[in-house]
């Protein structure tokens, strides 16, 4: 992808591609799968994609969008997902009500977030290393709590009813998880793009020194960022357990790459190449559609992983390559 820098018509083309690359890719991919698989565009399939592939990833990715906006990263989102899921399922297994279970699960995720916040803002550890350390510790904790990674299944009885109350209900035909996503997306959008807090987050991401010299309480806002991210990951943990009626240790990590990928796909949509809620949602949708499409045209799970890796790689290449060219 080398383009000479001086040609103005190429500049325009590049600007056009930069702005719409993801949308063009999106359209091309949808058309491709629609032609390749007759079931792809059926409402039943699209609904399935939305509920099973989009909702949970999107909520994690939205949390990560806040963190990446602030100039940081959270490698421990998987731990937040797992810890929420683990505490939730364990509480239900010991007979507590669904409300207590959800509260406990979110509380566990909150603890992960607070731990990250302390490491980053009090001990001045870089977000990457801090959340990497928490990732290690979180994995160890789960192994110790489940004698080496034994899953907990609660497929029948009282707990299963509680799970179904979360994952299998709907409001006016809209499944509860989708409603949760809509609420989360609107809230994060308002927070990130309309609120004072969001503006502070953007400023910290653009230049932390300027934020500090402008009288912004950087440590407090940064703590908030990491706690919010962990909490949102915790919401996904609850939804995950309720959907699969079980807790499988160390399963949250699967969200990490996809969530990072989705957020960066989203940044290619904005003029300043900044993370945004709408961009992230489109990124999640793109990944989900590709996964589903690959499945429908007969690729197995292993090839899907290659496909997604290649896709994320290409999007990153486009995003960074164009950014480099525009400077």
């Amino acid at each position, binding site marked *: 992808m080398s383009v000479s820098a001086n040609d103005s018509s190429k500049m325009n083309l590049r600007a056009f591609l930069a702005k719409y690359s993801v949308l063009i890719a999106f359209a091309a991919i949808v058309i491709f799968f629609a032609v390749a698989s007759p079931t792809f565009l059926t409402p039943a399939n699209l609904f399935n994609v939305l509920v099973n592939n989009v909702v949970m990833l999107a909520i994690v990715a939205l949390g990560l969008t806040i963190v990446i906006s602030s100039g940081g990263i959270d490698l421990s989102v998987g731990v937040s997902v797992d810890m929420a899921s683990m505490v939730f399922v364990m509480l239900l297994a010991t007979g507590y009500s669904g409300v207590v279970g959800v509260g406990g699960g979110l509380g566990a995720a909150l603890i992960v977030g607070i731990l990250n916040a302390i490491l980053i803002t009090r001990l001045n550890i870089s977000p990457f290393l801090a959340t990497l350390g928490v990732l290690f510790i979180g994995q160890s904790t789960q192994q110790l709590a489940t004698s080496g990674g034994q899953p907990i299944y609660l497929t029948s009885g009282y707990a299963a009813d509680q799970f179904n109350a979360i994952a299998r209900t709907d409001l006016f035909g809209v499944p509860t998880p989708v409603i949760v996503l809509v609420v989360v997306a609107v809230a994060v959008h*308002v927070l990130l793009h*309309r*609120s*004072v*807090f969001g*503006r*502070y987050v*953007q*400023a910290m991401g*653009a*230049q932390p*020194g*300027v*934020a*500090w*010299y*402008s*009288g*912004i*309480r950087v440590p407090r806002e940064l703590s908030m960022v990491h706690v919010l991210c962990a909490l949102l990951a915790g919401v996904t943990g609850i939804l995950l357990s309720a959907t699969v009626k079980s807790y499988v240790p160390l399963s949250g990590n699967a969200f990490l790459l996809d969530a990072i990928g989705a957020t960066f796909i989203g940044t290619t949509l904005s003029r*300043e190449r900044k993370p945004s809620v709408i961009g992230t949602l489109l990124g999640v949708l793109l990944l989900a559609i590709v996964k589903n499409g690959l499945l429908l045209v007969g690729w197995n799970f292993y090839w899907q992983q290659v496909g997604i890796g290649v896709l994320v790689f290409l999007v990153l290449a486009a995003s960074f390559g164009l950014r480099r060219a525009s400077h």
Partner: protein
Amino acid sequence: MQTAKREIAVSMTDISKRFGPVRALENANLQIARGSILGLVGQNGAGKSTIIKVLAGIIKPDSGTIVINGETVTSLSPASVEKLGVHFIHQDRLLVPTATVGEAVFLGHEIGFGPFVSRRAMERKAADLLKRFFGMELPAGTLVKDLTTAQQKVVQITRALAQKASVLVLDEPTAALVKREVDSLFDVLRRLRDDGIAVVFISHYMQEIEKLCDRVTVMRNGTDVGTVDPRETSIDAIISMMIARDVGEMFPKRSVTLGAPVLEVANLRLGGGFENIGFNVRAGEIVGLTGLLGSGAKEIVQCLFGLKTADGGSITVEGKQLALSTPVKAVRDGIAMLPEDRRAHGVALGLSVRENISLASLRRYSKSGLVSRNSENQAVDGLIKELSIKTPHRDALVRELSGGNQQKVAIAKWLSCQSRVYVLDEPTVAVDVGAKVEIYNLLNRLSGEGAAILLLSSDLLELVGVCDRVLVVYRGRLAGTFSGPSMNSDALLAASSGARSNADGMAA
């Protein structure tokens, strides 16, 4: 001085370079002679650094000829220039912080056998060179990051000498040096000149140019406007060659009536920084603050904005005593700060003009945590107009603005806070003359509106031209307060170097 025609080492003729619509260089010429020290002066943006970057092979010129050691060179790269014996001592100390002195001196030209290096030999040879040229002795294996700024500069020059430089270009080499180090650097440069090396010395300090250089090339608007002998041409004449306008117009006149004291500082003390500092700034007053590097003047300003916490004493704004431990509190208490490092602390280049201006005052434009874009836009548009910030629109990225306009954005940020006290830390560094005048005008207007202004600067002319009163700090104590006729650059310089203790008496 030598009158014989000196051999030309580097000759650059009719060099032109455009960046888009901007003419950075227009038929510029530069002749560098062996065995002499050439001064290169000019305002920021005059083309000094561009022509040096052309010679360094970093920028390709659109047209022009470059002859080095009698040979016409068609294409230059940083590596090929060094092979021709032309070496650059860059303004920023380009040394690997975790390297030893020996490694830093010989990086790229290591001593050893085959692919293997001999660290002992490199350390020893570096130590020899340092001793021979600078009389400097460092413990073996000292790391670059443990050296002082001056020592690092010396290591950089040693690096060039180790590779048998025949042309040495120094870009602002004295900026961070103490007087004694400047003197020894000058001795070294004179010795190198006497050995037949061509030295190019770029500096903003006129007295250094006068002291050191054999010839001075003056640049303005991308071209060389003349080459003179500094012993025959006065500094004033050189400055007027650099500046199209008359120096006297730089500092606009103003008349304000001073009000009650707004900022009152008493007995302020910081361990290892300063002690017994007391002064006040009245409404409408511009008070200057100056001192040498390490005198404590900088630390006073940092304490006033909560970047450092004073160990004792009081800071009072409009009668209310403040406990300043973070900038958060300082901003809330109505203190505005224009930091020296604009890109790191002043404006966020990746944010828009609007986002930068409203950053410190967002609460004013928000209800229950949400920003009202209407009132924000109104306020921002008002400030853009008021300060005549040249920007395509309020949502343009600050990165796209010129240095002076970026600085105006940084000031606008505080105007929208309606601060009572403005603390400015070197506000006109790396800002061109036109923008400087606009910033001075802005200070005048702020003071006219009753703000109290404290201006930390090391530009003595600026202090004399702008301030009502100047406080001089020497070794952590107030060495004097100057105003009226006693406030001139000679007196300020004398007080800051400890030669004279007082003029007006201490301010209460």
